[in-house]
């Protein structure tokens, strides 16, 4: 499944951020995933412990915020909720719509545990 490879690339990004900030480890990782991203949140959640094992993100919590699917209509200008296979305007039925939200697969933020202050010589 590609969720494992996506998870590995997520962990790479997270570790890089942790290293840049000189953190000891990662506490929490927040994502935003939309139903049209092609990424299955549950599979990502299941892959996370495997992908993070042995990294600075080991044992951290993955929080996935699900983004609603919304389209904006070019014909009537109204914004409505939609379904993945049905991106038609909910108000006037036009299929000339643009996606407002719903295809996100984004790393929003990372919470890091600071390294203990030690006096390096």
């Amino acid at each position, binding site marked *: *499944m*590609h969720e494992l*490879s*996506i998870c590995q*690339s*997520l962990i*790479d*990004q997270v570790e890089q*951020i942790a290293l840049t*900030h000189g*953190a000891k480890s990662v*506490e*929490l990782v927040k*994502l935003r995933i*939309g139903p*049209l*991203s*092609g*990424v299955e949140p549950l599979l990502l*959640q299941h892959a996370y412990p495997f992908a993070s094992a042995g990294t600075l993100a080991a044992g951290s*919590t*993955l*929080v*996935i*915020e699900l983004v609603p699917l919304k*389209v904006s209509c070019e014909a009537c200008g109204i914004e409505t909720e939609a379904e*993945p*296979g*049905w*991106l*038609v305007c909910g108000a006037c039925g036009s*299929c*000339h*719509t*643009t*996606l407002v*939200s719903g*295809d*996100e*697969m*984004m*790393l*929003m*933020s*990372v*919470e*890091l*545990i*600071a390294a203990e202050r030690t006096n390096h010589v």
Partner: protein
Amino acid sequence: MCDTCGCNITPGNREFAYKPVNGTTAVAVLKSLLARNDDQAIHNRQHFDKHRLLAINLMSSPGSGKTALLEATIDALRDEYHIGVIEGDLETENDAERIRAKGVPAHQITTGSACHLDAHMVHDALHQFPLAGLDILFIENVGNLVCPASFDLGQHRNVILLSVTEGDDKPAKYPVMFRAADLVLLTKSDLLPLLDDFSPARAESNLRNLASTVPVMQLAARKALGMQPWLDWLRSELAQQRARVGRGETAHPRIQVGAMRLHEASM
């Protein structure tokens, strides 16, 4: 339910549940999960533009006729363009062989068990493959309607094949994939008279319901039927690509999954 996977976190309690305690720092990131792939894809696109070629990503279910379409296209455009093919589909072992038999350079990516191509695999192939002198580079993706759509390879256009032996409800079932199309080809149209359950009109209306306005064409590569509109589309796309390169511009497919809202969020 449990404290480890986050499934008990609701919008109402999220901040409460994860209030940063002493010693933790929250870092805002706002980057795509596929940022590394996307960076590599940008680099691949620079390779393509440097060579003034048009790069096309072919996606479909296994067996929808991608390789057959390439064979017929090579035959039809032999005197007009130099074509190259990167093969990522392992459904049939001999895809690259079939292309080479047409006298066209083909590179087989051995994806192992991978279910999609990514930008790094394509980049590795590019550095083993002579791009100089090519007009059109086709990338035949792994036969899969699910994840190849999420991985930008650096292509300029996505072409999605739907064979008439599959259901006409495929666009509704695989919206992530079909939304990403710049062109949809209904393939094996010679079989339409034998099938009573595939309606090209229904397939198209399922595509329109995804707010897609891209062209839909019917063809049968194995019978050289309906090839002209497809060949004209290629000619026009190549001319546009040349003009863009001349202006120092590039193009990516109409939809890049996740990318648009990424831009909004980072503004």
